C-alpha cells in the first residue's frame, strides 16, 4: 500500500540517526580501554569495574533510587487525587487557583521551582536532605501524574460509574471496583513518569539537597562539568540499558496482549 517516498525515508533516517547516534557513540565508548572518550584504544569493561568501586557514585545512586521511589508513590497518590478533583469535583471555591497550581509547575523553569522550594525550607528551618528532595520531587511530579491521569479520566465513560451505583455500589466502592481498574494503566504510566522525572532531575535536587544527600544527577553533573570521563559513559550505558530494557519489555507485552485480544475478538464474531 503506502510506500515511503525517498524524501520521507531520508528525513526519517536522518531524524532517527540524529536522535540515536549520540547515545550509540556514548555506549560504544563506554567499552573503550583508553582514558580518552574520543579515541578508540581497544575493548575493555574496566570502567564498569571502577564505577562499581566508586563509593560516592554508588551512594548517590542509592539516594536517587530511594528519593525516586518514595516521591513517585506520593506523587501518584496526590496526582490521581488532583486529577479526580479537576475532572469530577465540579465547582468549588478556589478551583481556578487549584488548576493553575496543577498546570504551572509543568511550564515553570526548574531554576525557579528549585529556588523557591529552597527558600521555603530555609524559612521554616528545615534541614536539607533526602526528605526535602522527596517533598520537592513529589510536588512537581504530582502535576505530571495528574495531567496523565486526568486525560484518561476525561475519556472515561461516566455511565460506567452510574451503572455501578445503580447496581448497589457506594460511591467509594464504585470508584474502587470500576473506575480505578479502568484508569489503572494511566496511573501506572503516571508513576513511571514521576519516577523517571525524579531520577533525572538535576536542578531542583541541587537546590533542595544537603551535603549528605547527593543524588546521581548532581554527582554526574559535577563530574562532566569538568570534562568527559569514561566512567560516566559506563554509568550512562547502564542507565540507558535499563530504560531500553524496560520500555521494550512493556511494549512487547502490551503488543502481545493486543494481538491476543484481537484474535479473541475475531473468534467472538465468528461464533456470533
Amino acid at each position, binding site marked *: 500500500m503506502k510506500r515511503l517516498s525517498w524524501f520521507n525515508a531520508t528525513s526519517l533516517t536522518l531524524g532517527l540517526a540524529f536522535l540515536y547516534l549520540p547515545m550509540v557513540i556514548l555506549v560504544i565508548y563506554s567499552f573503550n580501554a583508553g582514558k580518552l572518550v574520543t579515541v578508540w584504544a581497544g575493548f575493555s569493561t574496566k570502567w564498569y569495574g571502577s564505577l562499581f568501586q566508586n563509593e560516592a557514585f554508588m551512594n548517590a545512586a542509592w539516594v536517587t533510587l530511594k528519593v525516586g521511589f518514595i516521591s513517585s508513590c506520593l506523587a501518584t497518590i496526590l496526582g490521581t487525587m488532583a486529577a479526580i478533583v479537576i475532572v469530577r469535583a465540579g465547582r468549588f471555591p478556589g478551583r481556578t487557583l487549584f488548576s493553575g497550581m496543577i498546570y504551572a509547575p509543568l511550564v515553570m523553569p526548574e531554576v525557579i521551582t528549585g529556588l523557591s522550594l529552597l527558600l521555603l525550607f530555609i524559612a521554616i528551618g528545615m534541614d536539607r536532605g533526602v526528605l526535602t528532595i522527596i517533598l520537592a520531587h513529589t510536588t512537581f511530579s504530582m502535576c505530571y501524574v495528574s495531567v496523565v491521569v486526568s486525560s484518561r479520566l476525561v475519556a472515561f*465513560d461516566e*455511565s*460506567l460509574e*452510574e*451503572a*455501578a*451505583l*445503580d*447496581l*448497589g*455500589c*457506594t460511591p467509594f*466502592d*464504585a470508584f474502587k*471496583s*470500576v473506575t480505578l*481498574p*479502568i484508569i489503572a494503566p494511566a496511573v501506572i504510566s503516571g508513576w513511571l513518569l514521576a519516577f523517571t522525572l525524579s531520577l533525572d532531575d538535576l536542578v531542583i535536587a541541587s537546590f533542595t539537597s544537603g551535603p549528605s544527600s547527593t543524588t546521581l544527577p548532581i554527582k554526574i553533573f559535577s563530574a562532566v562539568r569538568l570534562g568527559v570521563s569514561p566512567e560516566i559513559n559506563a554509568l550512562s550505558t547502564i542507565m540507558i540499558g535499563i530504560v531500553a530494557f524496560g520500555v521494550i519489555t512493556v511494549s512487547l507485552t502490551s503488543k502481545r496482549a493486543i494481538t491476543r*485480544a484481537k484474535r*479473541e*475478538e475475531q*473468534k*467472538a*464474531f465468528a*461464533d*456470533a
Partner: protein
Amino acid sequence: MTESASTGTDFEPWNDPKAVPLIQFKNVTKRFGDFTAIDNLTLDIYAREFYALLGPSGCGKTTIMRMLAGFETATEGTISLSGQDMAPVPPNKRAINMMFQSYALFPHLNVWDNIAFGLKRSSMAKDQIAARVEEMLRLTQLEKFARRKPHQISGGQRQRVALARSLAKAPKLLLLDEPLGALDKKLRQETQFELVDIQEKTGTTFVIVTHDQEEAMTVASRVAVMDHGKVVQVDTPANIYEAPNSVYVADFIGDINIIEGYATPISDTMVSVDFAEGQPKIHTSCPTGLTAPQRISFAIRPEKLLISTEKPTESANILSGKVVDIAYLGNISTYHVKLASGQMIKAQSANTRRIRRRAITWEDDVWISFTDTAGMVLTT
C-alpha cells in the same frame, strides 16, 4: 388489577380506579439553571407495565429516567415508589435498575462478572449468586459467552448482557434508556420482541425511553408522548395513533395530513369543516362535539384515504386533485395529490398489483374520498 383480571385478559390497571400505581410523579419540576427540563409533571406507572417515554431529543424523557434511577433530584414535587418518597434514597439503595444507552458494561470484567456485579453488592450467598447469574445467562441466551470480555462480543450480545445485568437483582422497576439505539434495524426489530418476552416472563415493570415511535408502539403497554418537559398524552399505542389529543401527537406518531379549517357543528357529534374556498366542506364526526364554530385542525392518516381515477359514487367526502409525486415503498405507495386550492394531500394505497399495471401515475387527475369517521378534529 383484580378487576381487570376478572373482566378479561386485558391488562389495563390505569382504567381501574382502585389500582395503586407503583411509581407516582406528583407535580415534578426539574430545572438545570435557567433551563426547565421537566415542567410540573404528574404521571402514574403501574406494576407490570411496559411504559414508554417517547419524544424528540431534549424533551426531558432522559431526565425523568435519571430522576427515577436517582442520578438527578427533582427541583420541586415528589417521586414515589410503592408509596415511598424516593428523594432521600441514593441510587445504590433503590430497588430500581437501569440499562444504559451506552450499555455501560465494565470493560475489565467478563460477561459473567458483569452480570454478577450487582448481586455481589447484596448480601446474597455465593452459590445463590452463581445460580442467579446462570439463570440470567439462560434467559438472555448468553451461556456460551460467559467468559468473554465486553469487547469480545457483538453489539447485540452486549445489549443482552446489559439487560441481564440490570435484571439480575430482580428490581421492582427496570429503566431502559434507548436500549436498542445502537443496533441495526433488523436486529432492533427482533430484539423488540425479545424484550417484550423477557418483560412478560420476569413480570418486571419496564420504563423505556425512546425517540423511535415504532419501537414505542411495538413494545409498550402505554406510551407517554413528551414535548418540552411536558407529557402531552399518555395512552395505549392504538389510542395514541387513532385518537391523538393534539396536532403535536398526531404529527409525531406516523404520517398524517393536517388540514386547517373552520368547523361548524351540525349535530352533537358531527361538524363540517370549511378549509378552502371552492372546496367542498369536509363532513366528519367529532365525538366530543363542538359548542360553537371555531378554527380547528382536521387530521387524517394517508392510509385512511381512498384514491381513484374515477369519481366514487358514495362517500361522505370527495375531493379532486392532481398527482404530483409518487413515493414507491414496495409494499405501499404514497401519492402526493395537489388539490385545486393548492393544498397537498398524501394518500397511501397498498400495491396489490405489479408496478407496470398500476392505474395511477404522475399528472393524473384523481379523486380522493374518505368516510366521515376516518379523520379527527383537533382543537389543540
